[in-house]
């Protein structure tokens, strides 16, 4: 495979698409599939065929179009684009009739709405555009060209310089500069092998960015990994993906096979001396395996527990070898950076956080789904413009970012520009991109309790502060939420927060107190109200009534 052959495949694909006057895109990512989009696609195909339109209209399964709340989504493309929501198989005749005519008003979703218009797509640029099951579709939109360019026209050093120039930072949560990580791994000496790993063990409650990328555009991630492997000098790669994502696993497996068949993965890629084999490893459901050292232990076949760093994986990683480990979204940013240059990427976003970020918008917001926005957008734009505001026009209370490791950001920071630093400043984190909106019907004590319950059950049990501290914090939060808490409990809770944060071994424990600490900081009155008045204003917590017989008895 060389650039000419690649262009030939792209040209063939474009030519085969050219005769179609209309295209019907049906989302076949997990969310829409779960509301029967596969049947919708079948019905549309049958309808097109029965009208003899199969040479004029192409029905295509595509990746996520973002607005999961309104699924199944169907987009028709004739002279103009029309998006339809909540489509059922019964709607197929109406949609096919509408091609080239008036759109079906009752199902229509305006593409001008801020949810679509306010996005800027880099990572998700192919989602909703290409068929994730076909490598030809990916190649037709310029896929694998950056890889071949990197392999044939750039030195590993040049690739790393380009990534450094882009200012890309790790999208897994911590925001470590990607170029710097790459150059560390490249410089790490190794007699034989180095490894690249893709962390696809997405485990935050309510987060589905990585799943969507893998299901919608698997080749994008493979290409990013291949460019990374070339840059750091690795010849073996692993994708660690959680077993709860069967569709993502299947599409990845198919994609690897297709890429190997075309010589874009495997031995002597594109007739160069560079080889890369990528294998998939399934996670068995432990959240902590998203932590890089635990993930590596799990790939090695050991118990998924973190170990102290340093040494960092860049120096001592998988099987003791230098290892590059990046998140799905980070890899998905690589191909566009190589294609358009680091300067182009650095032109998007804020001074310290470049590019875009994919967020999974969930909770009390009208438009739940997946959005990709430039760094530096305000929370207000995300929640009220793209998100469409709070249902029933209730009052906004907080937005929780970064999953169980993140914190709750109150309304006074709604106009803050979202980037790594600003979120850290207000006691939260960017995290992998989960964003849960809460209104006045959420009780912050209950929210803190929910996340602590998650951390308690997901603690690996290795270090004492996290293993036992999270259990005690959860007990105290339960006690307070039931109206049985005391001021001493609140004080102990704060002491535990500080100790667990300061002394835990890995990121899970160090950040487990964040939801508690941030709600204590911004919503302390709610805690105090539960303790002083045994009242939960949001009406969420079940306050246990004092025992009738015991009331009035002096203890």
């Amino acid at each position, binding site marked *: 495979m060389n650039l000419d052959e690649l262009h030939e495949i792209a040209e063939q694909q474009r030519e085969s698409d050219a005769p179609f006057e209309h295209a019907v895109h049906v989302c076949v990512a997990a969310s829409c599939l779960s509301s029967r989009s596969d049947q919708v696609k079948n019905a549309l195909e049958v309808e097109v065929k029965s009208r003899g339109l199969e040479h004029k209209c192409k029905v295509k399964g595509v990746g996520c179009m973002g607005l999961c709340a309104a699924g199944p989504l169907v987009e028709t493309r004739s002279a103009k684009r029309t998006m339809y929501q909540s489509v059922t198989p019964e709607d197929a005749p109406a949609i096919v009739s509408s091609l080239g005519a008036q759109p079906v008003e009752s199902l229509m979703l305006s593409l001008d709405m801020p949810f679509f218009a306010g996005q800027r797509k880099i990572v998700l640029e192919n989602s909703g555009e290409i068929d994730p099951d076909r490598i030809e579709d990916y190649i037709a939109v310029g896929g694998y060209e950056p890889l071949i360019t990197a392999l044939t026209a750039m030195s590993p050093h040049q690739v790393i310089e380009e990534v450094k120039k882009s200012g890309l930072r790790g999208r897994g949560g911590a925001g470590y500069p990607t170029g710097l990580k790459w150059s560390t791994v490249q410089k790490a000496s190794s007699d034989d092998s180095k490894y690249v790993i893709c962390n696809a063990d997405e485990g935050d409650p309510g987060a589905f960015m990585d799943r969507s990328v893998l299901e919608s555009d698997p080749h994008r991630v493979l290409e990013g990994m291949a460019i990374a492997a070339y840059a750091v000098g690795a010849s073996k790669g692993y994708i660690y993906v959680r077993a709860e994502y069967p569709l993502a696993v299947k599409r990845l497996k198919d994609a690897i096979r297709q890429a190997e068949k075309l010589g874009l993965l495997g031995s002597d890629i594109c007739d160069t001396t560079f080889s890369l084999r990528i294998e998939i490893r399934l996670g068995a459901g432990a959240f902590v395996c998203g932590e890089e050292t635990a993930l590596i232990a799990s790939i090695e076949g050991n118990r998924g527990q973190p170990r102290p760093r340093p040494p960092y994986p860049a120096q001592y990683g998988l099987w003791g070898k230098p290892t590059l480990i990046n998140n799905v979204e980070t890899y998905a940013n690589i191909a566009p950076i190589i294609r358009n240059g680091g300067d182009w990427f650095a032109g998007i976003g804020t001074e310290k956080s470049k590019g875009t970020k994919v967020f999974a918008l969930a909770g009390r917001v009208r438009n739940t789904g997946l959005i990709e926005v430039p760094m530096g957008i305000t929370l207000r734009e995300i929640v009220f413009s793209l998100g469409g505001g709070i249902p029933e026009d209730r009052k906004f209370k907080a937005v929780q970012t970064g999953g169980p490791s993140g914190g709750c950001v109150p309304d006074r920071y709604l106009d803050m520009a979202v980037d790594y630093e600003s979120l850290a400043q207000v006691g939260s984190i960017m995290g992998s991109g989960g964003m849960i909106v809460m209104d006045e019907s959420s009780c912050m004590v209950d929210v803190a309790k929910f996340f602590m319950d998650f951390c308690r*059950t*997901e603690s690996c049990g290795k270090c*004492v*502060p996290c293993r036992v501290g999270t259990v005690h914090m959860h007990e105290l939060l339960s006690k307070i939420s039931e109206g049985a808490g005391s001021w001493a409990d609140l004080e102990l809770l704060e002491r535990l927060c500080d100790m667990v944060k300061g002394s*835990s071994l890995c990121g899970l424990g160090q950040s487990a107190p964040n939801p508690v600490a941030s709600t204590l900081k911004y919503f302390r009155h709610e805690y105090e109200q539960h303790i002083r008045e045994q009242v939960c204003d949001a009406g969420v917590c079940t306050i246990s009534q004092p025992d009738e017989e015991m009331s009035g008895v002096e203890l």
Partner: protein
Amino acid sequence: MKKQVQIKTLKIEGRDVSATGEQTILQVALENNIQVPRLCFVEGLSNIGACRLCMVEVKGVNRLLPACVTRVEEAMEVTVFSERLDGYRRLILEMMFSERNHICSVCVVNGHCELQSLAMRLGVTHITVPYLHPKVAVDASHERFTLDHNRCILCARCVRVCAEIEGAHTWDFKGRGIETRVVSDMNEAWGESETCTSCGKCVHVCPTGALFEKGKSVAEMSKRKQYLPYLTLMREEARQ
């Protein structure tokens, strides 16, 4: 030509000390008789940094570092005892006491227990967190030894000594979080273990009364783990 040893000089607790570049902060501190609190550390075994008691402050580093796995660096300034560190250590010990059912007065190692003596040394006179009182089992199926989960602090010394020194790897963990338990083989009764050689090393490295010899009554079990550094050293020499 012999590889040249790198010598580093640093300050621990305000004292000037020297070390080779391969040494950890804990090793150097102990050499200089600075007794860093610790529980999962045993000389002669790999270090896992799990108990978090040996955390120290290093000037210029904004987080605490476990002394057992942190290598010394030139001009490092290490603080072992501070109000913050002591507070954390006492609270961590309280975590350990509250996690299982530690009742010293009826324990075989009363008076010889590392957990007990460390708590006394650090001034843990009482527990400020509620006891969790879990219902956990005692495995007395082995002919000579007993495993009492009520007293286990999950320091993994038994797991490491069995895998690294005896080479049997009888012990490991099951479950996660607070449900983590030490198990023999594939969670079978210890007495039915096919890999256990009954060497007793695990019993003697156990810092508490979780592992003990049968026939010992209250306060009668004292442990001898002095053999470990010699064994490790001899093996290293044999390998060279």
